[in-house]
């Protein structure tokens, strides 16, 4: 399959060059996804889809533009590519925009990332149905269950890239997801609901269906009779399964574009002690079977581990070639891969025990952060922590502050990085956090 796609990419580049492009980049993507949704004892939805797409970047006369199409009929595609060059010529020159210099293609790692699982390619309907039934039966083992929806999804993807200045690459990857969402009868008209799902590159790394459904049910039951907690300043323990989202908010403006455009609170902190000594974040594209692993980034820059924060000191941010030129910063990589967040040596229970009192967060609800200032405010639900133990369930609360200040108050991290995410983050403890509730 990959050879066909490579030929398509090469043809696209030839066509673009023949139409007047000096340089061009082509990516061809082909994917198949199969989703089974199973609800309350019956198959609810089966979706089986194959998609393909060609994306090109065109460099002509000092100008640049990007184009994608799902219409790969050869005649129409040829027209589309000619038009792409014409569109590029209609723009004004952008002196900072050049194709990736070939020296950044050098030293591509030869690590076998093992992102593709033959078992996933061969999954049949019977196997999917067996998992659905196991998930469904286990998920409904509670007298308050109103409805449970289980999901078994898998996909395979082939991506091929080529450039007019010598880059070529091909990636094959797979994924498999098992999960369940459960709704329980709660007080009055309220429903308590939560769920759990696990995604991995290989089927063998996904927990068995029954364990997943048990966890989903445990999390849903924990939401029963949730009440609003008090307005207070206290300790916040963030469960590892929702820590990645907080790390994502922190790192949102950690890139050259935000810095160059004046919209990043990271801007003046490079090389400085910006956060707690307990915070370390490494961008690691070479995690074996990692959900965000890669040998090169979308500009073809060869992958290598990139320390973002080490013991609270900002070491690097994400810099692509374009905004790197504009901001006068050497390129690192333009986009995150796997983010490994430094772990501690205590379990979640020990962290909660040490916290004494506070709020244990198990899910976020809405909220946002201002990347320019770092100000944030997030909805949450979870449990109160009372005398070092998980207490009554709480919800309808907000946590509000500033991200830089919050991560300066990171007191401890757990030994439990959540494995089913591109961000491998442990449970985290923050002190002196403003909660709003009753």
């Amino acid at each position, binding site marked *: 399959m990959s050879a066909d796609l490579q030929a398509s990419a090469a043809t696209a580049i030839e066509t673009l060059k023949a139409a007047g492009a000096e340089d061009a980049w082509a990516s061809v993507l082909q994917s198949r996804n199969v989703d089974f949704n199973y609800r309350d004892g019956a198959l609810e939805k089966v979706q089986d889809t194959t998609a393909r797409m060609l994306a090109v970047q065109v460099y002509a006369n000092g100008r640049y533009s990007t184009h994608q199409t799902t219409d*790969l009929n050869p005649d129409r595609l040829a027209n589309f590519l000619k038009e792409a060059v*014409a569109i590029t010529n*209609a723009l004004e020159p952008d002196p900072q*925009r050049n194709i990736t210099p070939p020296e950044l293609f050098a030293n591509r790692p030869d690590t076998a990332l093992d992102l593709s699982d033959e078992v996933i390619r061969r999954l049949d309907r019977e196997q999917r149905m067996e998992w659905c039934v196991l998930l469904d039966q286990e998920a409904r083992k509670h007298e308050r269950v*109103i409805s449970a929806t289980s999901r078994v999804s898998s996909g395979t993807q082939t991506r091929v890239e080529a450039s007019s200045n010598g880059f070529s690459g091909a990636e094959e990857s797979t994924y498999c997801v098992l999960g369940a969402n459960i709704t329980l009868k709660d007080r009055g*008209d309220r*429903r308590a609901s939560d769920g759990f799902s696990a995604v991995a590159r290989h089927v063998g790394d996904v927990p068995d269906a029954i364990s997943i459904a048990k966890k989903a049910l445990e999390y849903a039951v924990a939401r029963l009779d949730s009440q609003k907690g008090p307005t207070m300043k206290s300790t916040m323990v963030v469960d590892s399964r929702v820590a990645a989202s907080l790390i994502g908010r922190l790192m949102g403006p950690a890139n050259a574009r935000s810095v160059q455009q004046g919209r990043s609170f990271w801007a003046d902190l490079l090389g400085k002690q910006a956060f707690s000594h307990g915070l370390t974040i490494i961008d690691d594209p070479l995690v074996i079977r990692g959900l965000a692993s890669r040998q090169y980034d979308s500009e073809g820059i060869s992958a290598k581990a990139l320390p973002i924060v080490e013991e609270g000191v900002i070491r690097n941010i994400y810099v692509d070639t374009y905004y790197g030129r504009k901001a006068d910063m050497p390129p690192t990589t333009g986009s995150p891969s796997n983010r490994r967040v430094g772990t501690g040596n205590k379990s979640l229970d020990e962290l909660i025990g040490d916290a004494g009192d506070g709020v244990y967060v198990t899910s976020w609800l809405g909220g946002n952060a*201002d990347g320019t200032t770092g100000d944030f405010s997030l909805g949450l639900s979870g449990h109160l922590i009372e005398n070092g133990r998980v207490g009554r369930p709480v919800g309808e609360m*907000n946590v*509000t502050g500033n991200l830089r200040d919050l991560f300066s108050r990171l007191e401890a991290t757990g030994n439990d990085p959540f494995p089913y995410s591109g961000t491998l983050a442990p449970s985290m403890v923050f002190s002196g956090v403003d909660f709003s509730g009753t």
Partner: protein
Amino acid sequence: MHIKRRDFIGHVAAGSAIVTMPVFLSGCGVHQAVAIAEATPENPFMNWFGVDEVTIARVMAELTAHGADTADLYFQHQRSNSLMMEDGIISHANSEISQGVGLRVVIGEQTGYAFTEDLTLTSMLAAARTAATIANGTRMVPPQAFNAKKTGDLYVTTMPWADVGIDQKLPLLKYVDSKSRAADPIVSKVTVAWSDVDERVMIATLGGHLITDHRPMTRLTAQITATREGETQSGYSNIAAREDLAWYTDERIDQMVEEAVARTLVLFEAIRPPAGEMPVILAAGASGILLHEAIGHGMEADFNRKGTSIYSDMMGQKVAEPFVTIVDQGTIPNERGALNYDDEGGECGRTVMVEDGILRSYLHDSISATQYNVAATGSGRRQSYKFAPMPRMTCTFMENGPHTKDEIIEAVDQGIIAETYTNGQVQIGAGDYTFYVKNGWLVEKGKVVAPIKDVNIIGNGPESLTRISMVANDAKLDTGGWTCGKNGQLVPVSQGIPTVLVSSMTVGGENVG
């Protein structure tokens, strides 16, 4: 010079799709020969997708080979263009063609779905066979002819986006850029983002209907960064509608720029409010986000037929004061959420969810309408041919009430006004929902005393409805480009509301003792 481009060319061979010619190009010195379609087919959409009734009937037969309650083919061709200006030059210019057909079979509550981007008969038949595996009944007799429904007129444009050259768009972006920079000397960076979409949809149903819709969409955003004495703040404003180029009058753009600049500059003075429960005044317009999160999603009938919504057992009950009426209406011309037909080919209309305080109707797609034995409300929507439809909102708003904005502000002793928003979210079962307030005001003793910023507000849907204690007479729809996400599918929506007082909500804040 401006080269007028036709939006499609023909080489009308049976079974082959018709190409779109892009868009985007003109006045650039490139003069390509473009073949213009001179064929005048009976149905221009069939011609567009290169299919005919015989082909559709064959695919429908394969799709329903094992039975179906309903089935449909959803052909979609979408041409999108986006431009971004940073530092006074276009830093990103993108064009995208997305074309395919989604095939759906429904039996009871079960759905089989597949799509293909290759509109040849062979590929469509293969996709149909995949979708059909959900069923195990007997073969249906599909229609051999499809009756075309009358095309809608909610967003007729004088010039489709496919005919608008980039030379006509660039001056608008430059105008926004220079206007923003000129607005105040402390404006340090300006990002202008543009998008336009030309979408054609053709739906063939098992019932023998053929629905076509030509949907324009456009959005313009100004993002401002300002620096004063070493402090930096940023803010933005945007406008969006199913409109054409002529909609972008200087007056409309000037107003957007003024809003973007004002929302940014006020942040230098803005504080965080105290944390906790307090009265919240929702300013008219964008505060319709309350309706979207607090009740709209909970009223989508898929959640209710499954029993998973907090509103599942409340139909016919009093949920709010008698002056509260909440509507979802897809038929308001040119609104971002407007639709001539929904994505199942159903006619959109006006659905009164709450009438004079009484819960009246869910938002139905064909699956839930059948199960509840009611008429569908034209709420079946999907992001694209890649997805099966489900009940969604279109344009959600509250009708005017008996109070005035001034009365409402005077009634608050200690609280806030929420004015602009970035996003919201809801838990359907518990009913807890949030929205994030970017700009607002602190109110003390009936007076506006200071600007506030960056607070999340959280509440419970049914509780908040009962706490709507005053509704003003200044209802308006927001002109911003809202997009709603549900189960991984994004659709454009609109929202609006008059000034409203909610007697108590939990406001994220600082300065906790």
